[in-house]
């Protein structure tokens, strides 16, 4: 094992909202509840489909912000992360602050009434277009906070949030930024809901990641934001946990299906371990898997984990707790992984009961106390064969 402190990005602030809770503190408590909340039929999203989803219920819609609900979720998580990092607006002045955000819904103009008017030949109201443009997540944060560092919005589908944090790590390492605000956001929206249903990947009931009877995913909504600082600077040095490594690799295989042998995922994981200071698979204490609950995704991940980490690979999926939150997923799963490192405890992989015949290994059936846990991995797989892996370290 070889790793150096100067390659770490200390996590000096965290903010998160999902169905697990509106704050990191609420999330921390809910993460270890033995009986998780069940997904329910959508309330805010008008649809005829009877698909259970994980919908954030306790955040009042705010019309004083551009963009859709994705941006409201993001602002909520951003404020918490800045508070957690003890950063007021003035504290950012004069600093090189970068913003890197992942999203899928916020970068598509899928306003149905707007489009219905446009296709009828009439001129629709300008507000949806202006909100869409002003609601680009990274550019919105840069404007909102008056920053002048890099602002990058990544739309790598379901790995966007992990990629955003990975790029934040690289910016810190390369000395491009003093601080990086990184994460992801996505709201529940009718378009992806009907789209994922059309792809045949939505479960009719609560999702069961890695289970033999898994029948697909439940969509969810969330935002997660971390504030990163160099670990050899004062603020970063005080951080309990850090982002330590990042890898990204493409399958070059299929537009929606993962490479069944998972070569791209394996490359991404190996790159992330190298990036974390040439650590070895055996150094990883546990893995927070992408684990959507779809047959193809979960099988590939189990195959790769078995190949790289052996039959005793210790992994779980948190998507039975939050649903699949698309562009936010990699970001909130990074934060959940950090919480597990802080608590030295990994929860059970919810609703996993029985190992499928085509899976070489299964996730944790019960909570696992790991007092000496130091290294954790979080994986993300996306449409288009994008694979990302983040390594987190408790210091």
């Amino acid at each position: 094992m070889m790793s150096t402190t100067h390659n770490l990005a200390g996590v000096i602030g965290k903010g998160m909202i999902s169905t697990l809770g509106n704050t990191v503190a609420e999330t921390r408590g809910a993460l270890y509840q033995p009986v998780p909340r069940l997904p329910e039929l959508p309330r805010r999203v008008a649809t005829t489909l009877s698909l259970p989803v994980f919908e954030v219920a306790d955040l009042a819609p705010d019309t004083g912000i551009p963009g859709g609900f994705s941006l409201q979720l993001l602002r909520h998580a951003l404020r918490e992360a800045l508070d957690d990092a003890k950063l007021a607006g003035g504290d950012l002045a004069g600093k090189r602050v970068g913003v890197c955000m992942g999203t899928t819904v916020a970068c598509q103009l899928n306003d149905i009434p707007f489009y219905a008017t446009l296709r009828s030949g009439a001129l629709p109201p300008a507000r949806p277009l202006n909100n869409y443009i002003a609601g680009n997540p990274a550019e919105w944060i840069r404007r909102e906070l008056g920053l002048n560092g890099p602002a990058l919005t990544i739309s790598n589908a379901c790995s966007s949030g992990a990629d955003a944090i990975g790029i934040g790590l690289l910016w810190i390492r390369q000395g491009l930024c003093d601080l990086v605000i990184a994460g992801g956001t996505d709201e529940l929206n009718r378009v992806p809901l009907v789209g994922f249903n059309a792809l045949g990947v939505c479960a009719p009931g609560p999702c069961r990641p890695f289970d033999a009877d898994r029948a697909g995913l439940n969509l969810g909504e969330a935002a997660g934001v971390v504030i990163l600082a160099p670990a050899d600077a004062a603020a970063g040095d005080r951080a309990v946990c850090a982002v330590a490594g990042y890898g990204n690799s493409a399958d070059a295989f299929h537009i929606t299906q993962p490479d069944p042998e998972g070569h791209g995922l394996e490359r991404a994981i190996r790159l992330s371990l190298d990036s974390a200071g040439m650590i070895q698979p055996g150094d990883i204490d546990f893995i927070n898997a992408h684990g959507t609950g779809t047959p193809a995704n979960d099988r590939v991940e189990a195959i790769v984990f078995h190949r790289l980490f052996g039959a005793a690979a210790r992994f779980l999926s948190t998507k039975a707790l939050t649903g699949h939150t698309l562009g936010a997923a990699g970001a909130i799963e990074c934060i959940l992984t950090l919480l597990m490192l802080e608590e030295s405890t990994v929860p059970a992989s919810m609703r996993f009961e029985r190992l499928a015949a085509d899976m070489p290994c299964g996730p944790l059936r019960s909570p696992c106390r790991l007092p000496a846990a130091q290294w954790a991995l979080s994986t993300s797989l996306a449409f288009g064969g994008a694979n990302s892996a983040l390594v987190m370290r408790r210091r």
Partner: protein
Amino acid sequence: MPDLYLQNCRVFSRFTTPLSEDDLKAVRIACSLRRADRFTTLAAAAVKAPAGQAFPATLPPSTGLITVSAFGPHKTVFATLDDILDYPEDMILPVRFSHSVHNAAAAYLGTILAITGPTFAVTGFEAPLFAALELAQTLLHAAACPKLLLIGVEERGSLTQAAPALAPERFPTEPEEIVCAMLLSTEATAGSRRVIHERHPGTGTGTGTSQPAAAACTLGLSEAAIRQLAESDNTADLRLSPEHAADL
């Protein structure tokens, strides 16, 4: 940060070499893009269209890939909305939905070119090409890939056509359709050009850079910059400054 060098570049636009629908049809056939949408075909044309400057037929498998667009595949997003408006929700065409995401073009390009390096779809409205150039430099500096292919695509459609009427301050004219391919590395080679690019200043202070002027395209390039990019015989430093329409 190490210097960034442009090894190859192709730009298709009305200011340089235009792409015809016949060109796109040829790309569609050559690259087996039977199901892909026009946005993805435009992205593939950036490197595979018979017209334009020569471009390497093969790239190292570990080459990185970034696609960048402001509006992305908005025509395919709208085609999905057509489905939702015209049919029951359980009759949406899955192929339309799967092609409506920003990174679908990157997925196709990776498969066409057999490259598996780090792959990103970048989107924004404040000169996003410059954010993508900065990302390219970050990835190359991190040795995440030896070379990086940056593809910029903006497609015309009903949204871009309506944009000047809906937001005339931001879009005095319809955003240009443009496709560009930039093969980048941190090594100077024969015929390469050093790229000196600025960051969009955002609204923060301290950059010493004035607000950008109106751009010819939503990627943030002026007409002069588009023409400059297309100068294949020019090996002088390529200085690019972000330009865009007025801030909101």
